[in-house]
């Protein structure tokens, strides 16, 4: 019964989709506002990656929100999965069911971990030049930590430090926005010199924010992994 009703409803919605999509021709040039970004983006922001300039400059506010969402997820996860320390200690004392990882994994991850970190850093530092950016880089860094967790289940990142890093990088983002407000009267304005496009030190605040985001995302995702791991024991 429920299935039949569901399918009927979904068919109706699908018809709606068809009506709607038929009005948006696929692959045709429908670019409207974005033309402005494409044409003036490099000049106005100094970033050759237009997506980055949209993400961090024209629509930087979205990104701030996005970072906040991730932050909320990390904090919320921590809040929901929070356990009193005492109980946790008791659990630690009892026994550790997780098996020790194999030698190959441990050695391999030790080898790969710095490389992954480096790669992640590369991604977010070059966010304004190449595809990629803070989120992507952060995710890569977090995957590095995930690898380490797999290899050394007993080791933990320092929660305090990671929390501080999250908090600080978030503050840097907001702070830069506020500085923009101070210097040019608009929140999140690019108040730094734009530099020469297509070089590393260009695009004003964009790389700085991306670095902050990179750290923030990296630590947040790691924190999420850490929290989930903690509960899985």
């Amino acid at each position, binding site marked *: 019964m*429920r299935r039949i009703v569901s399918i009927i409803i979904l068919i109706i919605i699908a018809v709606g989709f068809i009506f709607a999509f038929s009005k*948006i021709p*696929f*692959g*045709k040039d*429908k670019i409207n506002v974005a033309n402005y970004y494409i044409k003036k983006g490099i000049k106005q922001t100094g970033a050759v990656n237009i997506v980055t300039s949209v993400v961090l400059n024209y629509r930087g506010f979205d990104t701030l929100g996005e970072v906040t969402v991730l932050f909320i*997820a990390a904090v919320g996860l921590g809040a*929901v999965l929070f356990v009193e320390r005492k109980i946790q200690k008791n659990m630690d004392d009892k026994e550790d069911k997780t098996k020790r990882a194999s030698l190959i994994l441990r050695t391999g991850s030790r080898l790969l971990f710095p490389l992954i970190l480096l790669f992640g850093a590369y991604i977010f530092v070059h966010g304004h030049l190449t595809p990629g*950016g803070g989120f992507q880089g952060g995710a890569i860094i977090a995957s590095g930590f995930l690898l380490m967790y797999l290899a050394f289940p007993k080791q933990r990142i320092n929660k305090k430090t990671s929390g501080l890093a999250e908090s600080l990088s978030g503050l840097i983002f907001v702070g830069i926005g506020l500085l923009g407000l101070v210097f040019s009267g608009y929140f999140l304005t690019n108040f730094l010199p734009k530099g020469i496009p*297509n070089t590393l030190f260009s695009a004003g605040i964009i790389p700085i924010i991306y670095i902050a985001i990179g750290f923030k995302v990296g630590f947040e995702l790691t924190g999420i992994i850490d929290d989930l791991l903690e509960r899985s024991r």
Partner: protein
Amino acid sequence: MSGIYNWMYYIASGGLILIGLYIVLVKTNLIKIVIGLNFIDTGINILLICIGYVRGRTAPIFSRPGISPANVVDPVPQALVLTAIVIGVAVLALALSIVIKVYQHNKTLNVTKIKGLKW
């Protein structure tokens, strides 16, 4: 043929969304429902990308010479997708954590059995 080619991506995205909705409607396992939500997210992301795509053009990154402004796709949907992905991840993470808690309290993942709150 070009019709199918034009519609293929829409079908994929709409299909993912509908499948996700179907899972949410019909499946009783919480994890599956969460996965369904993720399906919807993915579908929407594909939809956004489809909308921004212009046939025959390239990514809006001018790091290599030879890419003219007339030759790039819409950058905005890509930015939006970036945001949407992050939000999706956030929701997913939170959803899983809540599911863990729900499981601890109810010892089941079957939503038809988790009816402590009703009426």
